[in-house]
């Protein structure tokens, strides 16, 4: 058995990794040293044996087909799972948006005022009375005299109170008309603010 460095040199040469200049030097030595040449032959034989071993590790056709089928099946499963996950993500995001919008609408509808004016109501004397159903402010009626001067402003806590007052006033006006009392109070309430 030669030296370790000779063995490594010969193996590097057999691996095809020896630089050209070093290979030329090795050829000269092989021509001059029969023991080195015999060592190279032994290393070649060992390499041939190992090549047989590597080739013996090549799989049977059934094994190759199993791998191909297995990879194909797992790839298809992964694609299906990925598509489902994407769809689930989209649906979740859409549901979250809808829920958020619904929540905002539910929380906001109690706070937003409705400035839709109520239709005119008759007080029985044929005089229209208009009031604003402004939920952010108390409903109120302005009572004016015949010259347009505001005689009083009546505020109510709720639109129902205002409605009851209007009804009472209407009945009162009717009674006044029937008893011919000249000073009918004609409320003209229009709080347009």
């Amino acid at each position, binding site marked *: 058995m030669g030296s370790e460095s000779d063995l490594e040199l010969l193996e590097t040469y057999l691996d095809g990794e020896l630089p050209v200049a070093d290979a030329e030097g090795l050829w000269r030595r092989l021509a001059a040293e029969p023991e080195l040449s015999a060592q190279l032959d032994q290393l070649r034989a060992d390499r041939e044996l190992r090549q047989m071993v590597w080739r013996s590790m*090549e799989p049977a056709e059934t094994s190759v087909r199993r791998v191909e089928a297995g990879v194909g099946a797992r790839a298809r499963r992964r694609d299906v799972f990925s598509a489902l996950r994407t769809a689930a993500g989209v649906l979740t995001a859409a549901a979250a948006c809808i829920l958020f919008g619904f929540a905002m609408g539910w929380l906001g509808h109690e706070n937003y005022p409705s400035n839709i004016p109520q239709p005119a109501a008759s007080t029985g004397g044929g005089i229209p009375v208009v009031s604003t159903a402004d939920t952010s402010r108390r409903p109120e009626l302005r009572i004016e005299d015949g010259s347009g001067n505001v005689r009083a402003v009546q505020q109510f806590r709720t639109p129902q109170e205002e409605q009851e007052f209007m009804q009472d006033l209407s009945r009162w006006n009717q009674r006044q008309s029937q008893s011919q009392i000249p000073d009918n109070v004609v409320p003209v309430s229009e709080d347009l603010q």
Partner: protein
Amino acid sequence: MSLDEKDWQPSTAETTAELFEKAVQVHSRRLLAIARAIVGNRASPEDVVQQAFMNLYQHRDRYDWREPGGLLRRTVVNEALRLLRQPRPAALADESVGSDDDSGAVAGMIENETVTRVRRAIDRLPEHFRAALVLCEYENMPYAQIAETLGASVPQVKTWIHRGRRQLAEMLRPYVEGDAVVEGKRRAAEGKRS
């Protein structure tokens, strides 16, 4: 049907999925051999190769599947080494040597016995020695490419290959010397008869 690497010419019109499928068909055989050489009977080479392919499939759009050989070898080697680092399961049943059409002849049996002996010796080498050896001698890869595949330096790869071969020679020396003694006795017996 498996394709040979030399028969496969990827076209530019093929999609990534088609190129991936062709790569599986073309490279599986050699990758299974590499995996078998590295994991020995400690794991299933089929599991190693399948998992390596799936690792790449997860991010398939990142890679060039027209020339996947180096990428596949690197992935299979890494997966094989990763598997060996896990807590070691019970060794798998030793595969019988020989192809599907083993003739059973005496010479074949002797050869199979020799190959089995060498395979068992290779299985006893450290994992990086095995990996470097199989890439050098089976895949005929240059040292620099082996170093890149194994994440090591070229001098380190040369050391692994050299020490792997020396250890194999030491493990097989009793068999070699024994065979030489048997051969010597046989020749001596033939000489006496003549």
